């Protein structure tokens, strides 16, 4: 089936850390900033909580893009969590790229609790990027596709 890109609505999973990015998303909401409803936010205690398996599972269950948001390096609620995230995710995304899976489908952004505008802008940009890429084909699980 040919997917018509003008109608294609990507599913985006956003892992947001409880202390910064989730509050940032909240701020974007209270400020009435628009970002696409296709972004599904999953709150995690810290960006460091996100296991590489979570990212892959999100793709398996039908996500077209996965974005991970955490506190700015140096501002982690748990002091150092996001520094580990940074190394881990760099390696994981590089590996996805190495296997030929579009690296634009994955992203890490640092969004603080005060950056509602940045949150909205990041999500708009990311959704646009993923919409251009189209449906996630290379890391999909056909059994999990909606009929």
């Amino acid at each position, binding site marked *: 089936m040919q997917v018509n890109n003008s109608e294609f609505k990507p599913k985006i999973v956003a892992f947001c850390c409880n202390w910064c990015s989730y509050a940032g998303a909240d701020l974007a909401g209270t400020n009435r900033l628009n970002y696409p409803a296709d972004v599904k936010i999953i709150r995690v205690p810290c960006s460091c909580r996100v296991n590489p398996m979570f990212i892959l599972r999100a793709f398996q269950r039908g996500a077209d893009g996965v974005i991970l948001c955490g506190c700015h390096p140096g501002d982690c609620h748990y002091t150092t969590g996001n520094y580990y995230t940074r190394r881990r995710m760099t*390696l994981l995304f590089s*590996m996805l790229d190495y*296997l*030929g899976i579009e690296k634009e489908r994955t992203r890490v952004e640092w969004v603080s609790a005060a950056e509602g505008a940045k949150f909205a802008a990041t999500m708009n940009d990311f959704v646009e990027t993923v919409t251009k890429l189209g449906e996630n084909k290379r890391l999909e699980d056909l059994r999990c596709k909606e009929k």
Partner: protein
Amino acid sequence: MQREMIERAKALLADGTVNRVIGWKAGEFDYDITPAVFTTAEELDAGFLYNDLCAANLSKYLIKESRKEGKILAFLKPCDTYSFSQLLKEHRIWRDHVYVIGVPCEGKVDVDTVKSKGITGICSMRCDGETVRVETLYGEESIKKDEAMADRCLNCKSKKHVVYDELMGEEGDVLDSHRFDMVEKLENMTPDERFAFWRGELSRCIRCNACRNVCPACTCEKCVFDNDASGIAQKAAVDSFEENMFHIIRAFHVAGRCTDCGECSRVCPQNIPLHLLNRKFIKDIDELYGEYQAGADPDTKPPLNTFTQEDAEPSVIYERGGNK
């Protein structure tokens, strides 16, 4: 060398330094030599082998063996000592229960490589200096040793033993290898080509878990892939997602701890070049966080258990490379 090793092992058994020996013994064929534990001088005489076909890395067996009564004598090749040292660093082996003798290695002959050169129906194999003589159903063939070695030995990273109690032969050096050449080649392909390449390789996976079971870095008592609730335990991968996931996660779990011993590729019954996944992580770590060889130095911090404030941002991967 084999004679010398048996004599030394017998002497250590006789004076009570050790009560068993881990080494290699013949399998059904010349080329499927298997690891084995010997407890008496007679057993050593009858079964102990060391030649250019003894490829197995013995360090992983020492996790369980070192927890038993008494000391065990282990013969380790240079690349095995890296794994051994890495396991010591992770407190997985009881050092005072192991007596390590470093043995030299000139590269191991790999039967799959020999077969890939068109030699089939192999009955027996013998390495004779620089030539490998193969007796096949269709007559005798010979092949240069360089052509009979797997990638891991052709691009040997080091002939140096990093840990030992005693050394047989000369002390070797760390070598300048070209082990990242293939990784670079893949990196320079377009994503479509890379995807096609890996699909071709990984789709052959039968999820036998041999790569995980043999890996000296995979030592968890409970493995994420044995979790019944995960839906991926004890079964073959049924679609491309599961194949990709298994191999990404397997390689990721040993990232920063993989010593690049190449056992995963050696044992793969489907000949998937799994070491290329591990090497990608090693190469990325080297490039982004500074040169790091797992197992080489007991005091360095593993790259994924540490960080610096100046680390590269994940966005670095969008900028790297030409075709990427």
